[in-house]
């Protein structure tokens, strides 16, 4: 009787279910850290987190299937559309792969928290990509960021890890603060919180509005490690536990860039010329800085960090294009990018465990011959990142360039092409080290004729990443179909 008399808002539980599933998994894993005996704790938490990601992915797929037209929920604070659903599927897939990579870590301390935080970070991202107003935007951003800060610093006995956590916390909070400030200015100028109402408010010439837009953009650029807001990236990627780095590198990009495109196209369609140029400039900066800095890196994780900055640049080209092709290009690009990134970090993880030390260009010499599967896989991931054929990376670049050309920005295509040419040197440098240099005998850890340490879960993650990197080349049409439906829900 009472329930009937109090009006409650209608809640679309299905649309929220992917985030809730992961949140539930995080809670169970956290409880497990206390209640489950130590000897099964690792298996228990990993399985819970893994199944959380799997469930979230399936639920997101259901949402995708049942959402032909975009709708809003909870007082227009969240959106339910295919754009978010595709991003959520990607994030869930990345999370699952990260759990597989982490499986064989032999971690003893903070096991429950580790997987719980991983699931919580995933839940935050999944919530974030659905954000429909400035409040949920900030809430989602902080949600996954805080989880990632802690994850980066989780290896408390490693100075590098603590350093990474602290740096990420300070720089990340700075970015979040800028985003929050931008949100406040935008709200102050328009009196609206929702993206769509903001976009409908005609006040294109209000400086406060424009400053708000730029600060929102900068805040997201911090998260996507877009140059010149990327300074934290190499240190954090290097210091954080490698499975966490893999998750951060792939999933944070998915979340930040899909949200960036959503925010810019729905909340600021009138400023399209302005932010188009701004994003294009950021893209050029990321391509230049990321690629040039990656050239001189000796540590593979740092090299991959700068490479991720340069990939942010490529994806920003798609954002800057602001057309239907650009939306498709962004979502498609993220698929091989995420797979190659997870895979490359997985191989680095395996090498790290084998050497019990940091992985540099020197310490992977000869690895291709010693560990044929991981070597060949790493080779494919590097080719994928460089945009060679037989990997989706090539078609991702094609789509991104096509989008920019369709917009009429041929110079952006030229910048992208030059950046790709530069990037070849360091991507092929990894191949060169693995296959063309003799392995140093000091590094040979397995006894002669001994087999490498077995880690089937990690190898499974590598195999899946390999399959996606190569498969996205051959099965473009279905992926592009998904991306097309997703982009159309943003009215691109």
């Amino acid at each position, binding site marked *: 009787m009472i329930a009937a008399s109090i009006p409650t808002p209608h809640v679309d539980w299905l649309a929220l279910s992917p985030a809730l599933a992961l949140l539930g998994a995080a809670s169970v894993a956290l409880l497990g850290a206390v209640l489950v005996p130590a000897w099964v704790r690792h298996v228990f938490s990993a399985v819970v987190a893994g199944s959380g990601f799997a469930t979230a992915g399936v639920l997101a797929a259901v949402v995708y299937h049942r959402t032909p037209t975009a709708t809003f929920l909870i007082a227009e604070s969240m959106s339910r559309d295919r754009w978010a659903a595709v991003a959520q599927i990607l994030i869930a897939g990345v999370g699952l792969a990260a759990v597989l990579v982490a499986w064989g870590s032999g971690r003893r301390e903070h096991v429950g928290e580790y997987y719980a935080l991983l699931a919580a970070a995933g839940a935050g991202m999944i919530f974030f990509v659905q954000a429909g107003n400035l409040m949920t935007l900030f809430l989602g951003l902080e949600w996954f960021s805080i989880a990632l800060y802690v994850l980066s610093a989780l290896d408390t006995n490693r100075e590098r890890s603590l350093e990474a956590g602290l740096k990420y916390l300070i720089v990340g909070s700075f970015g979040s603060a800028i985003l929050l400030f931008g949100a406040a200015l935008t709200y102050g100028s328009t009196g609206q919180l929702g993206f769509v109402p903001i976009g409908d408010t005609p006040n294109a010439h209000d400086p406060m509005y424009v400053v708000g837009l730029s600060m929102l953009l900068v805040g997201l650029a911090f998260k996507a490690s877009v140059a010149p807001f990327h300074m934290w990236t190499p240190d954090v990627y290097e210091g954080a536990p490698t499975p966490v780095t893999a998750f951060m590198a792939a999933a944070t990009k998915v979340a930040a860039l899909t949200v960036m495109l959503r925010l810019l196209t729905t909340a600021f369609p009138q400023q399209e010329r302005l932010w188009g140029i701004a994003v294009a400039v950021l893209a050029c900066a990321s391509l230049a800085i990321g690629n040039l800095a990656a050239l001189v890196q000796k540590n593979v994780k740092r090299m991959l960090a700068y490479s991720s900055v340069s990939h942010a640049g490529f994806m920003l080209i798609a954002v800057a294009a602001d057309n239907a092709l650009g939306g498709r290009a962004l979502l498609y690009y993220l698929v091989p990018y995420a797979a190659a990134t997870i895979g490359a970090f997985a191989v680095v993880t395996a090498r790290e465990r084998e050497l019990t030390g940091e992985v540099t260009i020197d310490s992977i010499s000869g690895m291709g*011959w010693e560990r044929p599967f991981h070597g060949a896989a790493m080779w494919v991931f590097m080719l994928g990142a460089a945009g060679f054929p*037989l990997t989706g990376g090539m078609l991702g670049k094609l789509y991104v*360039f*096509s989008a920019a050309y369709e917009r009429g920005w041929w110079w952006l295509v030229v910048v992208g092409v030059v950046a790709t040419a530069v990037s070849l040197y360091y991507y092929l440098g990894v191949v060169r080290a693995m296959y063309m240099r003799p392995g140093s005998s000091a590094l040979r850890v397995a006894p002669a004729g001994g087999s490498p340490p077995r880690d089937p879960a990690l190898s499974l993650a590598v195999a899946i990443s390999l399959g996606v990197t190569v498969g996205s080349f051959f099965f473009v049409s279905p992926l592009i179909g998904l991306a097309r439906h997703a982009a159309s829900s943003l009215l691109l």
Partner: protein
Amino acid sequence: MLTTLLIVVPVAAALFLWIVPLPSDYAGPFAFLAALVEVGLWAGGAVRFDYAGGLQYSAHHAWFSDLGVSYHVGFYGYSLWLTGLAVVVGAAAVGYGAWVQRERARAYFGLMLFLTGSIVGVFASQDLLLFYAFFEAMLIPIYVLVGVWGGPRRVAASVTFVIYTMVGSLLMLASIVAFGISQHTFSLVSSGTSSNDWIFLGFAVAFAVKAPLFPFHGWLRQAYTEAPPEVAAVLSGVVSKAAVFGLIRIVLPHFPKPVSDFRSTILVLSAIGLTYGSLLAFRQPDIRGVVAYSSLGQMSLIMLGIFAANPLGLDGAVLHSINHGLVSAAMFLLAGMVEREWGSGEFARLGGAARGRPILATMLLTAGVLTLAVPGSTNFAGEFLILAGVFRQGWGYAAVGAVAIVLAAMYTLRVLSAVLHERRGEAVTEGSPDLRFEQLVLVVPLVALLLALSVSPNTVSGHSFPTTAAAYGTPQATGAPSVAVLQLKVTSGHLTK
């Protein structure tokens, strides 16, 4: 179906080698068998090919339709011949690898077969993006083949090669995007023409690097010297012909205006490259250096034929591509055998090898005489057609070409006398044997094919383009504005459909 099979068979064999843990001893024979199956498939296709018709053995499937990209493969006469060259040289190279028993056999032979498959893919592509994919895919095995199994300075050589080629092909990617988006399709069959100079230059530079054309030949000497000899054979014999295919299939028919605008520039550069390459070849201290720079010269000659842009020049270019491919493959394999036997290819350490080794002397002499285009040889036919074609663009080019033939005689005879005659070199040991059966099996087919072509060069030159026979008699063929004829010639397959 046949075209797809020609691409898939070597690639599938490569995957088999990589994945299935075959004992290393079986990898070489298996790969050689696969390469021979490939040759057989091609020969079967060549016999049933209708040389008067257009695009044949084609297969067409949509790949991703929003950009208008499809998997579309098939052969014209000239691309069928280039494919034949690829599979024959590929088989000889794999056989060479099996003979010298390369280390890490599964990886090595897999890469060789993968390379063959991607080259065939290049020659079969009828879609720009597919072409680009195969064009790039060739690079991956080459990079590793040179970098792992090459000579002492192999890593530098492979990095130089890849950077040169990738810069070229990325410019081409930009051009492909621009061309494809503005045409709303990437299909080579249904796209129209473009008069944009920048798009043209993107393609032109990519092919100029690949061929190579002066002044884009910086990678050539290192790559051809440091690569294993059989890889150098494929590189100079076949991979360089990807540029020939690209120019004939993409550039000439789709960019008629830029082609005629830039024609004299390219012809002058080709003439310079021809002379310069031939002179450098004459000055090289080792066999492979001579063959490397002679390749620069011969490819420049082929460029003269292509940009003569008339039926004579074009037929000559195709015929000479086949000739050069077979000759340079044979020369590189022979150079490899000499180096392997005596540990050096330097003329200072060689000499007098003919005494007691009649078979080696005969093979080297035959290949050499073919290189210098002795009248009656197929190389002579090719060069003659090219010079006759380019004569119509200006007698000066033909004069330079004729001089270069003399230079070719000089450098070839220098190789022959330095290796076979003169005093016995310190590296040439008294008792070292003549070529054996396993070696002959690899070289004799190449030389025999050249001799057969010498008997009937028209087999290739008369059967490369659908309208060739008719075009010789038509007034357009002798007149000046030949781009239209050419376009008809190259694309008549779909025009007549």
